[in-house]
């Protein structure tokens, strides 16, 4: 039996490709904006959204998108307002999101914290065809927004003051990138879980920047690494019978370690050439 004989694995593979493409694409901007941990923050807040879905009997993905987006907007507003106590305010929001999720799920009849497990750690093999359409829709929206606003977001993430002096709508773009990140978190939630979601936004970017010289190639290569990690991780978890989310993240980290070595080697030989 191969991996493609099973319906649920085919769905899972398609979802894996989409997550592998979107998370690092958004991640490139997030990392450049020095918000590498934004995904973690949004992930914690999204847990309250998931629990609200259980409580109200709505699809957890829908409520998670709404709550995560609201959380991301709150984070961005705290960040934009003042830089001094920003990280503490963010931390408060993270803990609130996590505690809120646990409390709400406890209050939901017939549910327990065990219901949250698949959202915390991912359950990509439970993706059905309806989920797939939702994930695909969100992923395409995220990539389209990045394509349209990419040039402006590049300037914003490079230097916010220059963006302002170029007449860019800085506040709007800041909120946009925060909301795009929150949608991405929810898309990736099914694959690797809310606790590991940020890894897919950050690790492929960190891997790729060991090897690249331009922003554009960093982004493209990080998307390649993202897909390699999600598809490779999913496939190996299937044959080895281990959890998929953790396998995907560990594979991504292994890729980073390899790239770090290669990058060091390449840079050393380059400087060797120039001094020779």
């Amino acid at each position, binding site marked *: 039996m191969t991996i493609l004989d099973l319906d649920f694995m085919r769905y899972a593979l398609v979802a894996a490709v989409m997550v592998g493409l979107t998370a690092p694409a958004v991640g490139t901007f997030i*990392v*450049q904006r020095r918000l*590498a941990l934004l995904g973690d923050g949004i992930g914690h807040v999204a847990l309250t959204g998931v629990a609200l879905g259980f409580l109200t009997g709505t699809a957890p993905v829908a409520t998670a998108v709404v709550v995560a987006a609201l959380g991301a907007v709150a984070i961005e507003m705290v960040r934009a307002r003042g830089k001094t106590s920003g990280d503490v305010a963010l931390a408060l929001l993270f803990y609130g999101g996590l505690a809120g999720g646990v409390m709400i799920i406890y209050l939901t009849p017939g549910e327990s914290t065990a219901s949250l497990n698949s959202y915390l750690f991912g359950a990509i093999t439970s993706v059905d065809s309806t989920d797939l359409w939702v994930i695909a829709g969100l992923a395409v929206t995220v990539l389209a927004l990045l394509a349209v*606003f990419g*040039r402006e977001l*590049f*300037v914003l993430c*490079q230097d916010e003051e220059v963006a302002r002096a170029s007449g860019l709508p800085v506040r709007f773009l800041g909120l946009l990138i925060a909301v795009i990140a929150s949608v991405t978190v929810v898309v990736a939630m099914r694959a690797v879980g809310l606790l590991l979601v940020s890894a897919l936004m950050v690790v492929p970017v960190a891997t790729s920047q060991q090897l690249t010289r*331009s922003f554009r190639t960093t982004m493209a290569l990080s998307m390649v690494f993202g897909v390699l990690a999600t598809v490779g991780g999913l496939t190996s978890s299937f044959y080895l019978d281990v959890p998929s989310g953790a396998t995907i993240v560990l594979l991504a980290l292994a890729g980073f370690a390899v790239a770090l070595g290669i990058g060091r080697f390449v840079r050393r030989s380059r400087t060797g050439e120039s001094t020779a």
Partner: protein
Amino acid sequence: MSTAFDMTAGQVTIDGRKILRGVDLTVDDGEVVAVLGANGSGKSTLVRALLGVQPLSGGTTLLYGRPPARFREWWRIGYVPQRLSVGGGVPATVREVVASGRIARQRRGRFTSSADRQAVAAALNEVGLSDRAGDPVSSLSGGQQQRVLIARALAGEPDAFVLDEPTAGVDAGSQQMLAQTLSDLVGRGKTVVLVAHELGPLEPLVSRAVVLNQGCKVHDGAPPTAVGAHALPGHDHVHPHEPEPAESSLPSWVLAQEKA
């Protein structure tokens, strides 16, 4: 002749500290104005407030007759910050950074035009970095990074340039190149506002000097003759690594002029 920048009683307060205390500054089209002063005198804040990048806590500032919030012709302004921000460390090539200077002239969702490409190539050529276009900006020296920032502003083909300490920490070669670029711009009738600790090779280009001391304008008029000032006995040479200067660190030529 129209007015590029017009600040009236500009005040800036950051974390309860008054950085600018009611500064009036008008820059007409085609003027080359140097903003001078000791470290911590509010020079950078003044030019950033002039552009609306730093919000005012009092007073007004106008860009070509409009307050920053209602200003729409941002392509007319090229801002050169003090240093290149590397952000979170994602690499970017020299060409990518310079090309981002076109942003105020580009329509959202449109592809890069041939006019964009030509302007970027011309800007790279002007600062002598055409051969480094594909290199990551992080691999460049401080002076070369400063040239990248200037090329980014040049690429936007603005009417007015605002440069925040373009000569700080820059090697002699880059300073000379900067002076050459500026004199080209002045020759083309561009407006230039530049912050400097010392004018050095830029001195002959400057048509007017504004001197700040502790957030107040203490001189507005003819630029100082730097050689004379440096030759004067008791000239207080302020270095960036020194603690915040006291009132006595006013350039000696200013004190001389005030006495006169």
